[in-house]
């Protein structure tokens, strides 16, 4: 499955990104406003100060005179501890103040002009006011400039800015948390449906009936349609297998039954031998057909293995009961020594595996002997061993016996398809277990096949 990024994660990230952008934006705006506000305050005081000084300008004997009122500087001290500079020029000549202070070009008379500049290595803000004073006959342009360093104003603006930054971070964190909550809440119905579907057993194909939000309704509808089609398709193929088996095996049953009757009526040994061979052929083909069908079923069920909790001993007892009549026909006793052993798995498959093994054991056992089933458990595994008193598995390596259509070298003329052990081995592998083949150590012992399964 190709997995794209989760919608929840994407939604959370997107919402958080928007929140981050808004936070930065609001911080920038608050900072700009704070600078603007403090700047304006300083400008107003500087303008008032310059005006106050300009108010004292007068003409005395053709000369421009002025007084520097204390209040003009006191008001500047009121907003911060910053240093104050001033300069008053009349017709370009400094009347008082700092010569180096370069005033900005004054605008029209009476208008205060502001400028930010650097003076003696410090950032300053200047306010400059031009006024025409009559000195003698001629009007002389007098410029009053008041400047103040900006440290205090900047400090106030920075304080406000960092406060805004802290608020923005807090706002962002809150918004991010809310984003996650929003993403979780809006995806909750989707997750609920997903978990409801995944909790189902492998063969549960009923439609999903759950209240779904409008956006999910089409998806749910499509899912239910798919399940419906799947159910029908499985039923069709099961019906087909059943029908095929029925069509093949019923005529075979007729042939076998008629042959048995003919055998009862047969007069000569040659006739009997021919009839016996027909029966053997019928048995062989029906057995192969059965195991091929079993093999297909096993492969299909292994794909999606059920994990029910089962008692291995009960399962063994049930299988033994089913095969008892077959065994008793040859006076073979099936002995089961078992205590409860809980395992997890598919009862149908495990029973099929055990049945194949027991079938073999009965088939290869001499008459009037016994087949022993024994369950032993250790901490993690259950072992179900099936021991017969037949010829055993011979000396050749046992491994190939579990491969498809392989038969042992000493099977003589017993009918078999070579699929029984393959099926059993595949079933056990699917359950996380294994099939162990050995020759029984006991005197008179034959083959010993052990089903090893992990305990539940």
């Amino acid at each position: 499955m190709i997995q794209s990024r989760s919608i929840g994660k994407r939604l959370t990230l997107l919402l958080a990104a928007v929140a981050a952008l808004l936070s930065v934006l609001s911080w920038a705006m608050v900072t700009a406003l704070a600078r603007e506000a403090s700047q304006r305050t300083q400008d107003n005081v500087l303008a008032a100060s310059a005006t106050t000084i300009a108010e004292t300008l007068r003409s005395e004997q053709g000369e421009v005179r002025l007084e520097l009122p204390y209040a003009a500087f006191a008001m500047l001290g009121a907003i911060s501890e910053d240093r104050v500079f001033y300069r008053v020029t009349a017709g370009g000549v400094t009347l008082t103040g700092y010569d180096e202070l370069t005033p900005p070009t004054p605008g029209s008379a009476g208008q205060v002009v502001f400028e930010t500049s650097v003076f003696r290595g410090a950032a300053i803000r200047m306010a400059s006011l031009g006024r025409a004073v009559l000195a003698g006959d001629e009007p002389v342009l007098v410029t009053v400039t008041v400047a103040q360093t900006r440290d205090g104003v900047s400090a106030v603006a920075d304080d406000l800015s960092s406060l805004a930054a802290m608020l923005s971070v807090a706002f962002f964190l809150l918004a991010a948390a809310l984003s996650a909550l929003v993403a979780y809440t809006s995806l909750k119905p989707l997750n609920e449906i997903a978990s409801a579907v995944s909790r189902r057993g492998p063969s549960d194909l009923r439609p999903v009936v759950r209240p779904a939000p409008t956006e999910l309704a089409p998806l749910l509808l499509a899912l239910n349609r798919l399940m419906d089609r799947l159910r029908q398709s499985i039923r069709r193929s099961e019906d087909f297998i059943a029908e095929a088996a029925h069509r093949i095996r019923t005529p075979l049953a007729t042939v076998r039954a008629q042959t048995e009757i003919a055998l009862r009526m047969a007069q000569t040994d040659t006739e009997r031998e021919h009839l016996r061979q027909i029966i053997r052929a019928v048995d062989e083909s029906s057995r192969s057909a059965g195991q091929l069908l079993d093999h297909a079923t096993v492969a299909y069920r292994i794909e999606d293995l059920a994990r029910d909790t089962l008692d291995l001993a009960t399962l063994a007892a049930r299988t033994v009961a089913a095969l008892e009549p077959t065994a008793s026909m040859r006076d073979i006793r099936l002995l089961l020594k078992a205590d409860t052993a809980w395992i997890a798995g598919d009862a149908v498959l495990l029973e099929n595996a055990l049945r194949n093994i027991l079938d073999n054991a009965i088939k290869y056992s001499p008459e009037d002997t016994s087949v022993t089933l024994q369950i032993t458990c250790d901490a993690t595994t259950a072992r179900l061993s099936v021991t017969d008193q037949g010829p055993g598995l011979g000396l050749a390596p046992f491994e190939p016996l579990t491969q498809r259509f392989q038969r042992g070298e000493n099977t003589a003329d017993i009918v078999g398809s070579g699929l029984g052990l393959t099926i059993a081995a595949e079933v056990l592998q699917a359950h996380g277990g294994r099939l162990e083949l050995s020759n029984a150590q006991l005197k008179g012992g034959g083959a010993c096949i052990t089903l090893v399964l992990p305990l539940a």
Partner: protein
Amino acid sequence: MRYLLVEDNLELAEAVTKRLALDGHAVDHATNLAHAEDCLAAASYDLILLDVMLPDGDGRDFLARSRAHLETPVIMLTARSQVSDRVSALDQGADDYITKPFDFSELEARCRAVLRRRGGAARNEIALGPVTFDLLAGTLQRGDDTLELRSREIRLLEVFARHPSQIMSKSHLMDRLFSYDTTVTENAIEVYVGRLRRRIAPMGLRIETLRGLGYRIETGAP
């Protein structure tokens, strides 16, 4: 014993009927479920052999429907060897099942096992002179003496008991006693007959050897 066979394949039904009749059983044959219901309403049976796939429905569904009022033991005839199919047959109330094509000896063995388990009114007895041979219980009874036989002894004795005056050849006994997928020598027959002869001697039954021809049972009756 009386059997009801529900099977839509006429050739198979004919063969099964004939084979069961050879052993002295009465068999009614129904070709579909509706017919089977008529038979069940008209007569009582010791055992029902029910096919799974019938033209007018599934034998298992029929069984599930009629189990409540149907006391008779049922053995299902199924074409599938799949375990799940068998399990569901038993869940629906079948007593046992047998996979087509089947060995008649196995069918008989399963019928006997089911009837024994049910312990109902079904009787399958053969009189051998003063001895009663109960095929279901697998016992010989003479007065107060009871002898229990084992599965193969029952089947061997049944062959003799059904045809008390007839000579049974070794080859014939071989077919009745062993499945066809194993090779047995006539020697094995001699061993089995010898064993049975010793087992039933205390009940006053004798198996006579006719050199070159076979064996015959002597019931000691006049």
